[in-house]
């Protein structure tokens, strides 16, 4: 078990390191130089050169990478070119925002979609199954920009019941923040619903067909108990891991939703950073997303292994 976890953590660290290499060197394809993008098209070349030197972007790439990555490891994420200030507060604020939105979306979508998946599984091939499957499919295929605009118009403008902007005033209470996050989370809920429900359904169908479910039924246990105690316990565990793999998308992939709802999440932050050639911001942002993603997968792995005695107790016979 400890070995298992240690190996996972080791792998995650290697993955993060590769990720850092990818962002760092891929970021170099961005045209023009950072100083030009800070100072504008009209600035004289001498000023550009001076600023480039000050930013250190005229040093050899490997040196830059080394300085950056060693700084990062020591908790120094570097300075933003755009804001000429440490990147860290921007990243952490945006990350907090993103995590909040992801949390709200998860809190809504996980119960609904698991319920949907289980109900579908219990009715395999019958009307509820078809309806849930097709609805889920359809919901998860509507691009966010379509569903987002629809909910804004319906709930924000016509019905005027929910705030259409996800940004709350400073010092807003947690319930107030959640209240602001309901609308933005709807497109995410729609997209994730079909996906998670599908997983939950597949897992449950498999568990229902298993020998141990048969044992439970043939013991004479009531159906409800069989499902709760024997089926769901095993069928939902893999779903947990699947949910974790969605955190990458939920944290970093919401550029459109964040734009639409004017929400300062990390997706938008790094997208802007890429546009502004703010390398330190871009790199730190992508790496932070990577870290969150890895941590989520690790937690899922951990939960999985806790819920799965086969791993928890090693494989010793």
């Amino acid at each position, binding site marked *: 078990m400890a070995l298992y976890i240690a190996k996972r953590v080791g792998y995650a660290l290697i993955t993060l390191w590769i990720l850092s290499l*990818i962002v760092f060197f891929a970021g170099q394809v961005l045209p023009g130089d950072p100083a030009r993008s800070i100072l504008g098209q009209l600035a004289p070349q001498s000023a550009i050169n001076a600023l480039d030197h000050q930013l250190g972007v005229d040093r050899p790439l490997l040196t830059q990478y080394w300085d950056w990555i060693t700084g990062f490891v020591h908790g120094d994420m570097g300075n933003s070119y755009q804001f000429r200030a440490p990147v860290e507060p921007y990243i952490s604020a945006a990350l907090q925002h993103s995590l909040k939105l992801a949390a709200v979306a998860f809190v809504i979508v996980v119960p609904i979609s698991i319920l949907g998946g289980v109900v579908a599984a219990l009715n395999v091939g019958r009307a509820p199954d078809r309806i849930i499957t097709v609805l889920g499919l359809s919901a998860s295929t509507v691009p966010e920009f379509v569903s987002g605009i629809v909910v804004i118009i319906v709930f924000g403008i016509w019905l005027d019941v929910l705030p259409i902007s996800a940004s709350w005033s400073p010092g807003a209470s947690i319930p107030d923040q959640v209240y602001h996050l309901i609308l933005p989370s709807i497109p995410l809920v729609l997209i994730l619903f079909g996906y998670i429900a599908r997983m939950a359904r597949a897992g449950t169908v498999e568990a229902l067909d298993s020998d141990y479910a048969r044992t439970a039924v043939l013991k004479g246990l009531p159906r409800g108990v069989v499902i709760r105690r024997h089926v769901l316990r095993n069928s939902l565990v893999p779903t947990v891991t699947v949910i974790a793999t969605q955190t990458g998308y939920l944290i970093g992939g919401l550029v459109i939703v964040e734009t639409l709802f004017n929400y300062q999440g990390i997706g938008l932050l790094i*997208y802007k950073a890429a546009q502004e050639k703010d390398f330190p911001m*871009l790199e730190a942002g992508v790496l932070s997303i990577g870290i969150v993603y890895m941590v989520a997968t690790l937690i899922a792995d951990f939960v999985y292994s806790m819920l799965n005695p086969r791993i928890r107790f090693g494989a010793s016979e």
Partner: protein
Amino acid sequence: MSAANPPVEAAGALDAGVGQVRRELLHQLLHSKTFVIGAVIVIFWALCALLGSALAPHDPLGQNLLATNQRPSGAHWFGTDQLGRDVFSRVIAGARSILIVAPLATLIGTVLGTALGLAMGYLSGWTDTVASRIVEAVLALPVVIIAFLFVVALGPSPRTLTIVIGFVFTPLIARTVRSAVLSERELDYIAAARLRGERSPYIMFAEILPNVLQPILVEFTVRVGYAIFAVATLSFLGFGIQPPTADWGADISVNYAEITAGFWWETLFPALAIASLVVAVNLIADSISGVLEG
């Protein structure tokens, strides 16, 4: 062993022949309602993509600056957009880029992902460990950022979209193929091949590949749906085909801002087109995997 000694098991095939199995699968597909509905929609859009403006009542590019943002009417079934162009015609003509890019990108991703997945699964060891880490790292990158980098390097175009989506799909498909290969490589026919002295490429492509084609096919059909979604989203961000060519995602992106002004038709119809196409592709994918796996 002589001719006089007749085979012990005189009867021939137990199971149906390959051709017959294919025919049966097709039969099953054609009798599945979801498949038929999906296929009809996809065929409809494919026709639009092929014939394009020939089917459209108006020139999809024809502007009329004095009749912009007209509501749907007899003359313009879906109304006109902010340059006075016929939305219906643009929806018809807009099928083309997405219907070329999405399957092509998926195909590229599938081919590369299959090759990578085969190598990871079969060669295992270091190849697998290293490739798996890279795959994980790429998967942790937000797609929009990947797309942005490619667009910067290659310029916005359908070709760029194809490459981006193919690139993003490669690791995803590689993961699926890898896990299929992992269970396949434990089978004894692989050992048998090694006992004939076969080389790795032969084993990967001639022995294993045909056996993992089924999950790959299922993955492919499912991925086409995601590809359509992705193409629409990236076109929405302006990474795809350039105006004035009609394109659903791009048309939504230039017009969605006007929904609040009441010009819903400019956005709604391309959005419905996207939704119908993705749902149709998913219906097909669903029934194909149902038939193959069930």
